[in-house]
């Protein structure tokens, strides 16, 4: 037992010691852990713990910061996209300007190169490697001046630079520059919205060459036309240049100035012309009709008298660039014709004068005759007036006499008519009828006397119309003819144009007869 107890005790002690050791270990681990828990360390478990315990707090504090970071990131992303877009645009622009045939260069507001294409660089091969973005236009111009790439820069460098800079200031279009290598470049410049300049450089060498060819062709054509024109002019024409060499002439020239057909060699110079003319046609006149005119001298017209009697009108005119045009007109024939004309004219004038004096004499004679005839005429006129006066008096007398005779005659007829309406014995009735016939005869006579009085015709036509429309009472109706006669006479002699009012004896009513209107009221 005694041995077992110590054994048991020993086992217990051993177990306890082991337990104690473990607990100490645990204790150490825990203490260590607790101590380390406040250390700043990056251990994964502490990160886990930190994440849990501090997450809330830290998050609160850092959320603004994170948001700022995010916004920054967002801006960067947007910026990145914007840059990408800008790069794309730049690339597209580059591709675009490379694809065009013209040289293309963009300069910024400070006139520094931003972008140009290969064609632009190709225009300035010697300085191409020095033309990079950022180089100013003035620098490029200076480089061109130094290298003499353009003809202008080669010939007059300073002037070319100042002219080029002046063109640049205007930024207009269409300056043409000849390059030293024979190419021609047309430069069009345009201001950009930001104040820079876009330059388009077009190689127009081909165009220029074509232009030159076209111009030469046109000149040749014009020249041909001119020559043809010259040849159709009857005057002789020749043109000397500033060096007094013959440059143009026409076919009639030699014959007009009296040179043989083969004589063109003699006039190839102005001096030759003067010499051969002097030799062939006699000495020159004092006014020197073939003399040279300096530029700006006034046009001259003079006559050259040949020994042969030929007269040539010479017109000379200086040409703007020096040189002289001469035209020769043979006026011998026209001068002679003018002389003949003058003589004919004089003869004619003399004959006209002779005729004029003859006519004047005849005229005087006629005047006298006229005067005589006028006096005869006046005498005749007086005689005629007297005759007319006599005639009028006679007519008046006849008219008055006829009227005075007719009045009682009519009354007599009225009574005869009234008598014939009565019961009468046959013999009596025969007497009445004969009385009526006798009265008719008297009336007939009177009428014949008055026949020349033309106005009666118009009046009788008016009165005739009465007979158709007149309404008369039974008493008056049988005597209508008388009434009518009376009215005719009254109206005709006293009041032509106005109505007359005879009284109807049987009924006492007034009877108005208008000779003009033909209307009768009763």
């Amino acid at each position, binding site marked *: 037992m005694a041995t077992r107890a110590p054994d048991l005790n020993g086992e217990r002690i051993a177990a306890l010691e082991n337990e104690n050791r*473990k607990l100490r270990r645990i204790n150490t*681990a825990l203490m260590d852990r*607790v101590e380390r828990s406040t250390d700043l360390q990056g251990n994964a478990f502490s990160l886990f713990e930190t*994440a849990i315990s501090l*997450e809330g707090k830290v998050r609160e504090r850092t*959320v603004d910061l994170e948001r700022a*970071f995010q916004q920054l*990131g967002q801006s960067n992303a947007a910026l990145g996209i914007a840059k990408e877009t800008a790069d794309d645009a730049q690339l597209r622009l580059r591709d675009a300007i490379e694809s065009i045939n013209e040289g293309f260069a963009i300069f910024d507001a400070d006139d520094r190169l931003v972008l140009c294409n290969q064609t632009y660089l190709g225009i300035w091969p010697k300085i191409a490697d020095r033309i990079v973005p950022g180089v100013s236009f003035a620098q490029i111009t200076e480089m061109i001046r130094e290298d003499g790439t353009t003809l202008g820069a080669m010939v007059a460098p300073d002037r070319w630079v100042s002219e080029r800079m002046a063109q640049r200031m205007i930024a207009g279009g269409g300056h043409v520059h000849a390059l030293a290598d024979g190419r021609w470049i047309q430069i069009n410049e345009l201001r950009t919205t930001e104040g820079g300049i876009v330059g388009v450089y077009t190689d127009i060498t081909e165009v220029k060459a074509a232009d030159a060819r076209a111009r030469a062709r046109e000149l040749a054509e014009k020249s041909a036309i001119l020559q043809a024109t010259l040849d159709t002019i009857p005057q002789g024409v020749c043109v000397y240049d500033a060096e007094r060499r013959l440059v143009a002439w026409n076919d009639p020239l030699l014959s007009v100035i009296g040179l043989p057909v083969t004589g063109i060699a003699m006039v190839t110079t102005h001096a030759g012309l003067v010499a051969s003319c002097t030799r062939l046609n006699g000495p020159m006149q004092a006014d020197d009709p073939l003399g040279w005119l300096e530029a700006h001298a006034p046009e001259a017209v003079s006559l050259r008298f040949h020994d042969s009697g030929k007269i040539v009108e010479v017109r000379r005119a200086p040409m703007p660039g020096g040189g002289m045009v001469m035209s020769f007109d043979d006026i011998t024939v026209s001068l002679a014709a003018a002389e003949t004309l003058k003589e004919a004219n004089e003869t004619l004038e003399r004959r006209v004068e002779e005729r004029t004096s003859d006519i004047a004499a005849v005229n005087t004679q006629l005047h006298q005759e006229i005067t005589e005839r006028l006096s005869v005429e006046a005498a005749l006129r007086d005689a005629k007036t007297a005759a007319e006066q006599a005639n009028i008096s006679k007519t008046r007398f006849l008219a008055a006499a006829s009227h005075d005779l007719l009045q009682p005659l009519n009354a007599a007829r009225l009574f005869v008519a009234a008598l014939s309406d009565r019961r009468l014995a046959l013999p009596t009735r025969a007497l009445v009828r004969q009385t009526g016939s006798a009265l008719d005869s008297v009336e007939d006579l009177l009428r014949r006397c008055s026949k020349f009085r033309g106005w009666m015709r118009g009046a009788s036509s008016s009165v005739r119309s009465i007979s158709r429309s007149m309404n008369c009472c039974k008493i008056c109706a049988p005597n209508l003819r008388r009434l009518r006669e009376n009215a005719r006479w009254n109206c005709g002699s006293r009041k032509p144009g106005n109505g007359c009012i005879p009284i109807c004896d049987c009924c006492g009513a007034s009877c108005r007869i208008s000779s003009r209107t033909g209307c009768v009221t009763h």
Partner: protein
Amino acid sequence: MGCMTLNHPAATDDAPVRTASTSIDDPVEAARHLFRTLDPTTLAGVLLFCSSRYRLDELAAAINDCTVGLTVIGCTSSGEITPDGIAEGTITAIGFPASHFTLNATRFEDLDNFDDDDAQASVRSLVAAAGEASRGLGEPINRAAIFLVDGLSHREEMLTVTVQDALGDIPLIGGSSGDGLVFRETFIFHDGQFRRDAALVAIVSSTRAMKIFRPQHYQPGAIKMVITDADPVDRLVREINAEPAAAEYARLTGVTVDQLGPSVFASRPPMVRAGGEYYVRSIQSANPDGSLTFYCAIDEGVVLTLGEGRDIIAGLESLFDELDAGVGGVDRIIGFDCVLNKVEVEQHQLTRKVSNMYIQHHVTGFNTYGEQFRALHVNQTFSGLAIGK
């Protein structure tokens, strides 16, 4: 259980998040089948989970052939949650329609030499890029960051803290890639290649409501223990309570050392208390030298509490109800389910039931070697992202 609501649901419309799954053995055929279903031309991006049984180089090439110009991210898995429920050996993919989503991704490599400043800078530019990319989607935009990491890198804590810090308001949710409990090689897929020792973060942007969640099926029990010897870098625990770690853990859970394996680890996970809450610290493996390797950070002096399982089904039901209400009707749930959860579910013979619940609630995802929720790296949770209709 930690849930977090992002913005409120936008108008309901009919461009659902698409899913597809294949178990065709030939990588080329598998990829063709998968993307024929997804119609890549109308997608903003694809998230895929791939069994590690596939020949990954061939698969990557096949995927690239089918998705030229499309953002495709993914990882290897230890089991997938397919449109037809829980499965293994498949390739399962989620397609985000371009009409309603954008997906922007970046990755980090050489995680042992991880430079947190560089990483933060790259995450910030990613956030900015996502902002730019999603400009056309409309307002308001909701975002979540999907995080996938090499599951054997042991760098999750460092990464999540760093990345979440740079993400700011955008919540991070993700999983550690798996290899079917072989623990040899795990990969993430980004930029046309499966990559080791790498992590990726992808920002999903949409006007649809999004909500991240992190429930666990465990609660702390009565038994506590202290880690007395550990290698935090390798997540290796040599001693617990001054005894060899595996033996002590086996003793406390009432099993023999040779019985230690995923099923024990799954049902009795050690938990740590932090910030007033208990978090599971899952054991990956019991090593021949008597030590234990963990799925997550541990340290000497850490007090572990043995966890006990809760009613898994009831927990899931309440989770799905909450999510449905939170996003105004779930269109799709992207699930990152710890591989040990799957083991635990199998042990309780609940696989079919849970699988049906996943189908019913449109869960698609994979079984992880760890989950990331905001700045945390946790274990044995069913974490994920719910996307509203």
